[in-house]
């Protein structure tokens, strides 16, 4: 089983590495976007999948991250690493600020406060036109990677995104498998017991929200770098729902679920949106409702039960 998993993983990574040589520009761009948005979806996995607090304001972080990259590059001539760091720091700082108050709220109230937070960021960004240029947005020219590679080169851009994705994926995986991730899951299951064990639940929840916010901000920064552009639609509340939906469809509570869900739904969107722009949301809405009703564990959960079922059958057959 362990070997099988590793093998599958190696095949997927190999396919991703070889992809530019096997397919055209359309697929390459789509896969890049999927990888960036998968990080956005992982931010939901941290805060909701593991810690059990649903955030509906992630677009606020995404947009703040995107603008951090755009503004540091435009106004401070920052390099890529500095710009990305700025996106992480700024979004994590906002997350800490909000979480310091909001983590006391439970269930719906936390979700609603995150919605309001996202809205404040959105309206602040649209109102501060001199800084953000509102819905017209900011275009910028990207600095060179390691002072020598241009992100306008398709291959550079693709491998940059892939490398960053893999690095962040393993970082998040490490984090969630670590004792810290285990405590997050314990909070999700029973917050009071964790408190009785002597853990500072408030601090841990703030930390979880900060990690989630940083991840969302980072994905926003990556998206801004990838498209050399940022506008205030990046902060809109309807975008906040997207990573939640991707994660639910893919399967919450597993680090692979949100990635699978993102890939699936974005693939669907690319396939449909060119001529059926208003049919796509109807299909996605239906998929999300059907998932909640029939597969609460999402696709990853369904696969897991299926595999376990087959294994059990094989074991008992022998």
């Amino acid at each position, binding site marked *: 089983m362990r070997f099988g998993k590793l093998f599958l993983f190696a095949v997927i990574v190999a396919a991703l590495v070889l992809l530019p040589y096997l397919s055209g520009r359309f697929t390459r761009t789509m896969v890049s976007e999927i990888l960036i948005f998968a990080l956005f979806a992982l931010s939901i996995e941290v805060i909701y999948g593991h810690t059990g607090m*649903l955030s*509906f304001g992630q677009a606020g972080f995404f947009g703040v991250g995107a603008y951090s990259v755009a503004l540091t590059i435009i106004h401070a001539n920052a390099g890529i690493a500095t710009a990305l760091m700025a996106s992480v720091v700024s979004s994590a700082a906002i997350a800490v600020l909000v979480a310091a*108050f*909001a983590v*006391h*709220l439970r*269930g*719906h*109230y936390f*979700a*609603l*406060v995150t*919605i*309001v*937070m996202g*809205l*404040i960021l959105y*309206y*602040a960004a*649209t*109102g501060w036109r001199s800084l953000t240029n509102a819905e017209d947005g900011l275009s910028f020219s990207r600095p060179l990677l390691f002072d020598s590679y241009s992100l306008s080169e398709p291959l550079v851009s693709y491998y940059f995104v892939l490398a960053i994705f893999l690095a962040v994926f393993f970082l998040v995986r490490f984090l969630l498998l670590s004792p810290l991730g285990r405590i997050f899951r314990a909070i999700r299951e029973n917050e009071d017991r964790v408190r009785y064990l002597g853990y500072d639940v408030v601090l841990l929840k703030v930390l979880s929200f900060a990690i989630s916010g940083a991840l969302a901000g980072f994905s926003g920064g990556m998206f801004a770098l990838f498209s050399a552009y940022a506008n205030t639609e990046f902060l809109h*509340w*309807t975008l906040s*729902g997207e990573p*939640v*939906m991707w994660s*639910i469809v893919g399967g919450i509570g597993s680090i692979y679920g949100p990635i699978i869900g993102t890939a699936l739904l974005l693939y669907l969107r690319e396939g449909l949106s060119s001529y059926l722009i*208003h*049919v796509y*949301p*109807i299909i*996605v*809405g*239906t*998929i*999300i*409702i059907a998932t*909640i*009703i029939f597969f*609460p564990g999402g696709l990853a959960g369904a696969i897991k039960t299926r595999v376990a079922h087959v294994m059990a059958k094989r074991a008992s057959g022998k």
Partner: protein
Amino acid sequence: MAETLVFQLLNAMVWSWVLALLALGLTLVFGYLDIVNVAHGALYAIGAAVSWWIIQATGAPLGGFLLSLVVAPIVVALIGIVAFQTTLRPIEKQPPIYTLITTFGLFFVLQHALFLIFGGAPRSVDLPVATLIPLLDRTYPLYRILMACGAAAIIAGLWYVLHHSTYGTWIRAVQQNRDVATAMGIPARQVTLVVFAAGCGLAGLAGVLAAPVLQVRYDMGIDIIIDAFIVVIAAGFGNILGTIIVALIYQLVQGVMVMMVTPVQGKVLALSLVLAWVLIRRKGLLEREKRR
């Protein structure tokens, strides 16, 4: 300047009743069913669209409008019933937070289904009552005053039903303890369905009332639903009086601030105040302390 202020305040007071009506639908469904209905804005748009169709079909601004006041909420409530039975009933036993995700999916489905039927172009509805009242050298449309009165009457009726009728007692009983209520012979399943349908119907009604003032668009619910949510959060869920007061304060504050800062800045200020209020109090304004 003073004249503008008067009109701003008048507009705010009038509009706050429509907002309160919309927010009441939300607060009813959350307070009594533990469902945050994100699709509420889409239902409001559907109500407005149905009203437009009826007025077009009948060709009579007033007659069609009055007809749509009856028909549109029923249509929207029926959509709500179908949505509830197919999407929310099956997850009744799941954690309540799931309903937020489900209704987000519903919001997508309903809003874009409306686009496919209604089209993307904004359409306007003629004022059912074209009379203008002279006021301070200017005129004010009588319809807006009537609209506010209508919304207030509906809210009063809702309050009466909830607190002074047998069915209202049932609704409150089911909210307090569903199992005991069922044991007492109250049809809890039916009650929850009726509450949800009523909440949706209120969204439809608000849509009909707002249609002649605003333009009817398939996505007209996106912005106002946010205001409604803000009102509901600040007022505390399931609280009728609080909802009315907060809607009024929210609109008045925005109306006055629009004269000093840009509308967007006004919104940021208003939102920040609400957020600070909720975070400090950790509860809605006027919310009864005992509510669980």
